[in-house]
């Protein structure tokens, strides 16, 4: 739960600097951008600041393999990124802002539809006790209510001890999709969200939210979507409590959901999370119960879940920490959904297929041990297991164990790790298997730094290797051995350079050989105080000896950048 911070009239009791600082924090919270450095003129007039930047890339790419194997296509492309941040700070501390960022490119792997995209469009004003923003606004009301980005209007204001927040707008894939039906792949969703939150003493806050949405079925072209447009509304109430080492967060919600022309559903949700934080021991307990038809505007509220968990972190000794987790989880999406009655004829049952597992019990334990007698030497251990069953008799089982031994000294570091996992699922038995993975790495760094003089040049090199074997229950085995080398260096005032070279060999479960290699070279240097130049070259070649799955891409480009 994110608690929004708004300045209020009480801030006037502090110094002018304190007020401004609070307002700038609000501004940063509202706009999602750095707060401006406040330097009021001597007469206290409004100060206007403008920051921005631009990058231009030109690159050539060759690609083969087709759209199923690679997102890239060949040709000469460009990419232009622009960013502007205009702010005005009034003498009383109120901040107005206008932010805009745009990307333009003719590379179809950069922008999915069209050749330009607005990354940010945001204008607003914030002051003592209020904030209003228009454009890309982040609505952050509660876990079960509204928690999503919206293209619209956001207004917040304190009324005494009560914060009231309201938002209305459209949920769209992008500004371009909002303006152009041809670039929509989802319905436009008209949405609103309201929240009132009040403090009761120092330790308790309580809040209530109301929100709803309706998808516009005519907002996408014919045959673009097979989805039936829906609508939903939710009301929630919750509290946050903290006293000393104890804390508790709880929220309950009721929702109504319906698809156009079909019967609607009412459902409910409840979440409770609490804990105790000691000096060396932290305990967390929680219970989440969300109905499968619970519909909200919150990205946090996944529907169809009932779970209870306990989690503990314990600094058992100065050299050892332990983390344990046990949980029982029920995925209500696993049950075949109740078919809504069709508009014209009586319903028949939908086939109860699903690879989901209904109820799962899981436990995991992690330990981190640092050997005091050998500074820099550490050992990480982990183990976990889960069992699941569905109402249809299906079951799954997952087991995993791992250990990593690492050592870090001033000029070098190394690690050796092993992971083992076993997966089985009676519904998708074709991929039941056991996987063993070994990995090792060695890194080294060099520089001319001394105790009193900072480095004028640095050089780092890291080599990693891994080998993985997957043994399927069918008797087949897949294997992959990978080697990767990364070298990077920087010298003042020349610039920086990094290089990556890697490859892998192995075979898939059918016995077919797998060969890949990749490389990357990236060099950059500053051009004056505000400019930059970057050259890059990279490529990947995969499975060239297997025509059906062979793909390759190579790219060379130059980037110029300028910031003001």
């Amino acid at each position: 739960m994110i608690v929004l911070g708004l300045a209020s009239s009480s801030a006037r009791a502090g110094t002018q600097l304190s007020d401004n600082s609070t307002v700038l924090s609000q501004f940063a919270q509202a706009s999602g951008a750095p707060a401006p450095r406040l330097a009021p003129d001597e007469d206290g007039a409004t100060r206007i600041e403008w920051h921005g930047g631009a990058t231009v890339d030109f690159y050539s790419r060759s690609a083969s393999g087709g759209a199923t194997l690679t997102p890239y296509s060949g040709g000469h492309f460009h990419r232009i990124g622009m960013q502007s941040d205009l702010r005005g700070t009034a003498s009383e501390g109120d901040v107005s802002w206008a932010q805009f960022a745009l990307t333009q490119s003719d590379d179809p792997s950069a922008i999915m539809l069209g050749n330009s995209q607005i990354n940010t469009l945001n204008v607003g004003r914030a002051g003592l006790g209020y904030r209003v923003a228009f454009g890309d606004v982040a609505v952050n009301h509660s876990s079960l209510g509204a928690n999503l980005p919206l293209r619209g209007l956001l207004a917040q204001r304190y009324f005494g001890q009560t914060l009231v927040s309201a938002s209305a707008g459209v949920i769209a894939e992008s500004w371009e999709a909002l303006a152009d039906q041809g670039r929509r792949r989802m319905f436009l969703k008209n949405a609103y969200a309201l929240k009132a939150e009040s403090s009761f003493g120092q330790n308790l806050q309580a809040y209530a939210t109301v929100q709803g949405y309706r998808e516009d079925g005519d907002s996408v072209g014919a045959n673009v979507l097979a989805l039936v447009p829906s609508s939903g509304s939710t009301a929630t109430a919750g509290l946050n409590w903290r006293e000393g080492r104890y804390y508790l967060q709880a929220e309950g919600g009721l929702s109504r959901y319906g698809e156009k022309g079909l019967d609607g559903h009412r459902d409910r949700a409840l979440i409770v999370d609490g804990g105790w934080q000691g000096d060396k021991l932290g305990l967390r307990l929680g219970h989440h119960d969300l109905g499968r038809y619970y519909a909200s505007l919150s990205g946090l509220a996944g529907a169809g879940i009932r779970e209870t968990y306990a989690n503990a972190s314990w600094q058992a000794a100065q050299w050892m920490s332990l983390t344990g987790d046990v949980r029982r989880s029920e995925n209500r999406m696993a049950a075949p959904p109740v078919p809504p009655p069709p508009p014209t004829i009586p319903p028949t049952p939908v086939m109860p297929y699903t690879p989901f597992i209904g109820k799962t019990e899981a436990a995991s334990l992690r330990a981190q041990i640092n050997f005091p007698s050998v500074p820099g030497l550490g050992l990480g251990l982990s183990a976990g297991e889960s069992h699941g069953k569905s109402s249809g008799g299906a079951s799954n089982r997952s087991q995993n164990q791992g250990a990593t031994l690492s050592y870090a000294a001033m000029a070098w570091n190394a690690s050796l790790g092993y992971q083992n996992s076993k997966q089985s699922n009676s519904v998708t038995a074709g991929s039941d298997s056991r996987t063993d993975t070994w990995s090792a790495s060695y890194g080294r760094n060099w520089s001319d730094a001394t105790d009193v003089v900072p480095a004028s040049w640095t050089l780092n090199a890291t080599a990693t290797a891994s080998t993985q074997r997957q043994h399927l229950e069918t008797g087949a085995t897949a294997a992959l051995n990978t080697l990767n080398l990364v070298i990077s260096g920087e010298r003042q005032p020349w610039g920086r350079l990094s290089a990556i070279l890697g490859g892998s060999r192995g075979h898939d479960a059918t016995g077919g050989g797998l060969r890949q290699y990749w490389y990357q070279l990236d060099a950059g240097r500053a051009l004056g105080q505000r400019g930059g130049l970057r050259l890059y070259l990279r490529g990947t070649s995969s499975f060239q000896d297997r025509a059906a799955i062979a793909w390759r891409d190579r790219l060379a480009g130059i980037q110029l950048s300028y910031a003001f």
Partner: protein
Amino acid sequence: MNAALPLLLLGLLLAAPAGAQPAVPAQSAQVAGFEDMKAARTALDELIRAYETGDVGLIQSRLDPGMIGYQRFIDGLRRDTTALKQIRLHLFEANVTAGPDVTMIEAAWEKRFFGVADFTPGVFRGRSTFLMHRAKEGWRLAAVSGDNPFSSEAGALATLSVMPAALPLGSLAPCPGAAVPLAIELVDPDLAGLNSVTIELASSQGDREGIVLTAVSPGRFRRSTTPVCQEFFAPIPGSGIVEVNAAAVPATLTFRYIDANPGANRPPATLMRSITIR
């Protein structure tokens, strides 16, 4: 929903005099900036690389144990890393919005992979909002809204397509008839690993049949022909053949699939496609 109500409330909020209100303790908020956005994006990219390499342990260490649907997410991750090989997740240009402790990254994505059993290539496409929260240890993934690229079980909206959009009555053979070139494709990443799925076909004349689609790659189910025939009496539901009463055309065939877990925090959603027989 009446849009006028929230707009009216917004107007009232703005019009109300703040100065007349009692004092409220000012809260100090952390300042979010472009560096925070970059750090959150870097943390997301790290999770993507971990997903591609099957490093479930790293992803698990970056999740909040209190995340709603934590176990479903982890179960899906483990199933993906077992059943899909050579995963590559490509994010298109993203829209990043940051607050003091939260960053929302909206992006379209494509996921390419090979099935573990036969190394058949596959590709899923979707659009997600990644909700990142700032914790003591750095940025953590709090939730994925929309189509979840990390964890098939955690929900991605299916797509259903039927071609062509119309069939002439003359192309249908008399019952029991033969299959007509009516192609159906369903892509549901949540069902990767299943060999077949059944969708429902209902006609405006009262017929209702289950149509089986076969997996051509993980999560992609297809058939190129459908058993549809014509006759001159009422159809028989559940016969395995879609009978069209030639005396009552035009008729509509509606294909329906209920996506049990469509993502986007959406309850089970109905996908429908219709074609006309005339």
